[in-house]
């Protein structure tokens, strides 16, 4: 038994696996080699840390926090959860959507067009423009004279 053999067997020894070397051989080397003895002791103490870590308990409020988080998730899900139509209804939903978009476009077009038509009709009526902008009559005559030149 040399130091390398011993160091390669530390884990097996800690698990009572003596397939490579017997317990007696390992014990004999650890008694005569201070280095390996130190390593063996440290290894055992380090492995005991695993047992300590296994006993660690989560924060007692972690469960409450999780339940709240799941509740929030469910609420957010409901908020975004639009009813998904069954496959055979999808063309109908699509058709309805397109019709709604066209109708909306037409209505908006009418409104915009109406404003434009109103404006142009008012502009053609010079009298109403003049009264709306408080343009004095004399100025209008100057413009007409100027345009006639």
């Amino acid at each position, binding site marked *: 038994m040399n130091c390398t053999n011993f160091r390669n067997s530390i884990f097996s020894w800690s698990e009572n696996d003596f397939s490579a070397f017997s317990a007696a051989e390992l014990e004999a080397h650890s008694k005569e080699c201070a280095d390996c003895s130190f390593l063996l002791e440290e290894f055992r103490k380090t492995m005991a840390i695993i047992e300590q870590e296994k006993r660690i308990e*989560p924060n007692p409020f972690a469960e409450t926090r999780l339940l709240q988080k799941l509740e929030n998730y469910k609420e957010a899900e409901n908020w975004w959860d639009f009813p998904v139509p069954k496959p055979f209804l999808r063309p109908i939903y699509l058709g309805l959507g397109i019709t709604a978009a066209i109708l909306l476009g037409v209505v908006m077009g009418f409104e915009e067009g109406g404003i434009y038509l109103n404006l142009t009709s008012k502009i053609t009526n010079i009298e109403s423009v003049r009264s709306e902008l408080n343009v004095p009559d004399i100025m209008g005559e100057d413009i007409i004279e100027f345009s006639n030149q």
Partner: protein
Amino acid sequence: MTDKELISGIINRDNVAIQHLVVNFHKKVIKTAYYFVHDMQDAEDLAQDVCIEILESAKHFKGMSSLNTWIYRITVNKSLNFIRKNKRKQLFSQIEAVFMNRDGSHAVERLEPSYIDTKFDDGERKVLLGKSINTLPENQRTAFILSKYDELPYKEIAEIMNVSLASVEQLLHRAKMNLQKKLIVHYAEYSTKKQ
């Protein structure tokens, strides 16, 4: 409540089923995540992510494995992803410098007799252990944590990792040999540093 009932309850967002999920699995999920990330707050956040993932993916659960195995698989994947994404944040990588010699080289493997008087405390041992486990390849690390910390039977570890029983045995053997080697190197490095 059977796995099937629980899953269908979760899909329907039934409060009783969700409560059952939390009561029966939450603590286990936190602890497993903690064994990977070594930080309780991160483990708690990960457990929340795992439970949200369960709610999101319940409809895809086919029952090919047990619910327990499926939840373990999600937990392991989330934990490994977290470690990959937060490598800089990891406690053990932050103290990497402690284990390096001044010239930046790693300490020699040979443990000099004069170093054997070095006394480690449990805090230092915890750091050494965490650092050593965290530097194992992912599949060895997973097999080791599920076996040594979660105390799961090889068969369940094989199902969680989606590998054969023989592979689990091999991964565990390699993990132990690597861990033993890494620990011995770290004892030497840290002893040198403490001198």
